[in-house]
């Protein structure tokens, strides 16, 4: 009797889960479809296209980092080589040597990424952990140096350019206008996201998690951890290649920097910031990546410094990234305990803004002195006039920064106490419910 009830309850729960799944995936598709209608400028269309590409790349990166515990410092190799093969395929389509619908060119990139993952991944995945990270770094440098050595294929400093309006248009779609390309990218993004999510549910995906958590036990039950890592690496290389192919079609030029260390570093940084422990974390990271690369880099020269600082604090205080912060707060909200936290977020935010404003003013003054000396010491930061030679401006900025840091630290400690208390209350409630059930 009890068993039948249990079965019925699980069935209800799983069907509710199924419903939720449809809502989430439907919502994701809807966002992809509606986004370019909400933001209509050509800048936002380019950015949305880049976000779609970055989502594929960061999710593919997270197959290694989040699901396999493999930290790669050279994963741009696979997206970058995918880009190069895709642009050559595109040029062959333009030249008439190859008959292939332009919409399938990203798949060429994917296959190239996969082939190179098969080749290089065999060496790379021989090790796990820290040696794995160092080997990926070495292979990244190897491929980057080689890309400058063979100008015939990689185009040297100038890179290889192409034209995505090639071959016969299908239903009048030429992919010339950005919006047409955006929907192609959105389609790829959706399909790849679904495929990568499905991968996490396959036996291989599950074994990968096991290899991440306890490789020794996996060996005991008779699996070869190296091969599990290797297969995951190949799958990840395929999706990286697709992202690279989409990138080649989006920019219509591929230079050697697509295989460079800076690009690999960006994938790592933003995947981690978004949250490697949840499947959807890298999507947040990818959106942030494009926003930072396009908007933040316009705003300040020191954007990488801010990024590095935020990243370091994230590693120290929230190793699960933004996704984990969201999920933790959702859990608190589900137990109806979010309300007392809200004012804390407000004051913590104010303290963080003080740090940003004070530190930012000082950094901008230094850069102003360094680069715009001819314009004199007067400058503006966030609409506030500053004198880069004046003691007053420096003192004010330093004071603001210092006050912000002290305030933030005091608030953070008190907040941590409150947070821990709430977590304990939640644990208690869960335990009581379990006891009652």
């Amino acid at each position: 009797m009890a068993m039948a009830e249990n079965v019925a309850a699980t069935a209800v729960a799983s069907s509710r889960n199924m419903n939720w799944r449809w809502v989430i995936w439907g919502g994701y598709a809807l966002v992809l479809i509606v986004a370019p209608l909400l933001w209509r400028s050509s800048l936002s269309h380019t950015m949305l296209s880049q976000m779609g590409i970055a989502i594929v790349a960061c999710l593919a990166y997270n197959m290694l980092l989040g699901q396999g515990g493999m930290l790669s410092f050279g994963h741009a190799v696979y997206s970058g080589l995918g880009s190069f093969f895709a642009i050559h395929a595109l040029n062959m389509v333009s030249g008439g040597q190859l008959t292939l619908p332009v919409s399938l060119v990203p798949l060429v990139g994917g296959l190239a990424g996969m082939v190179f993952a098969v080749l290089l991944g065999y060496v790379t995945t021989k090790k796990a952990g820290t040696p794995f990270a160092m080997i990926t770094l070495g292979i990244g440098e190897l491929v980057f140096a080689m890309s400058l050595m063979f100008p015939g294929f990689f185009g040297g400093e100038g890179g290889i350019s192409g034209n995505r309006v090639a071959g016969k248009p299908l239903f009048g779609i030429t992919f010339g206008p950005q919006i047409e390309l955006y929907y192609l990218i959105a389609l790829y993004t959706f399909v790849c996201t679904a495929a990568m999510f499905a991968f996490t549910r396959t036996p291989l995906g599950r074994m990968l998690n096991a290899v991440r958590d306890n490789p020794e036990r996996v060996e005991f039950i008779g699996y070869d951890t190296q091969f599990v890592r290797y297969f995951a690496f190949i799958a990840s290389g395929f999706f990286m290649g697709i992202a690279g192919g989409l990138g080649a079609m989006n920019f219509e030029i591929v230079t050697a920097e697509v295989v460079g260390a800076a690009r690999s570093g960006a994938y790592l940084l933003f995947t981690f910031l978004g949250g490697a422990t949840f499947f959807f974390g890298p999507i947040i990271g990818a959106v942030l990546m494009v926003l930072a690369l396009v908007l933040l880099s316009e705003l300040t020269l020191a954007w990488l410094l801010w990024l590095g600082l935020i990243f370091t604090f994230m590693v120290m205080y929230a190793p699960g990234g933004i996704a984990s912060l969201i999920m933790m707060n959702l859990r608190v909200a589900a137990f109806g305990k979010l309300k007392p936290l809200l004012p804390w977020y407000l004051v913590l935010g104010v303290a963080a803004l003080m740090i940003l404003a004070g530190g930012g003013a000082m950094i901008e003054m230094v850069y102003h002195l360094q680069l715009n000396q001819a314009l004199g010491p007067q400058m503006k930061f966030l609409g506030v006039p500053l004198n880069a030679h004046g003691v007053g401006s420096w003192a004010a900025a330093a004071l603001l920064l210092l006050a912000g840091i002290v305030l933030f630290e005091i608030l953070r400690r008190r907040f941590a106490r409150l947070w821990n208390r709430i977590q304990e209350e939640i644990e208690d409630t869960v335990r009581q419910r379990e006891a009652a059930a």
Partner: protein
Amino acid sequence: MDASYLLISTLNGLSVGLLLFMLASGLTLIFSMMGVLNFAHASFYMLGAYFAYTIAGLIGFWWALLLAPPLVGTLGALFERSALRRVHKFGHVPELLITFGLSYIILELVQLVWGRQAVDFKPPAALAGSLFTIISQPEGLSLAWGGKSALCTTASTICTTFPAFRAFGMAIAVLMLVALWLVLTRTRIGLVIQASLTHPQMVEALGHNVPRVFMLVFGAGTALAALAGVIGGALRVTEPSMAQAVGAVVFAVIVIGGMGSLAGAFVASVALGIIESFAVSSDHSISDGLQALGMAISPETFGYAVWSVKLSQIAAILPYLLLVLILIFRPKGLFGTREG
């Protein structure tokens, strides 16, 4: 390939290799002790060069050589105390990540303080000239102290000079190597360090403060990197990209040598330095070798782009090629004891 070329290439290679080893030794020490791969190690090398540049401008090069390493070492120890120790409990990947973040921060701060262009950091006047000249005459080789002599003006002699500062850098590296070995094997703190490598709990139970030993080792490792930076910065160029240029090679060195093995790091750095020095100055390509074997290689041959690449062009990727080969044929590295 004459004897003077052989001699000077070997010496140059040795000096590059010893410089690499100064970096690799600190990295290996930190790695074998704490299991932490310090991704920002080359950034500390760069900091050393920039600190020395500023100090040299104020009170002279010799003070810079003396002061820059301890200053950078203090910063390294502070970083260990305030950031690295905090993530130690999360495991090795977050430790690697936090040093990765640090490398971004240091690079940006260096650009903020010293600008994005190279700075003019030169060896001191006392060491600016040549130490000796190799005079290659038809009748044989001879050595002369100092710069080019009157002999060099004759047509049949080839003179090659060896810079004094290069030799000074080599001397510093050898001194450092000996000092390091003495400290690790002959002093009390060295014994505690060695014991903490293998039996941290036992050492802690005996009343030693192991976290503090970690902090000291991290500080010492970064100080060694900074010492290499003072030499390397003055010998080469002091610029914001110097960290990235040398960082990846050093990682290759410690994998080739075997993770955590000081002797392996030494052999790998010197070997890489010498191989690279010979490759850079060579004008041969694979196709030359194949042609010497009797194969016909022409621009129509399949893969001509690969066969015609000059050895001097490959020099930059040799460390990584070697890394891949070592991983295939001897996964634990030259002197490594464990497979990770």
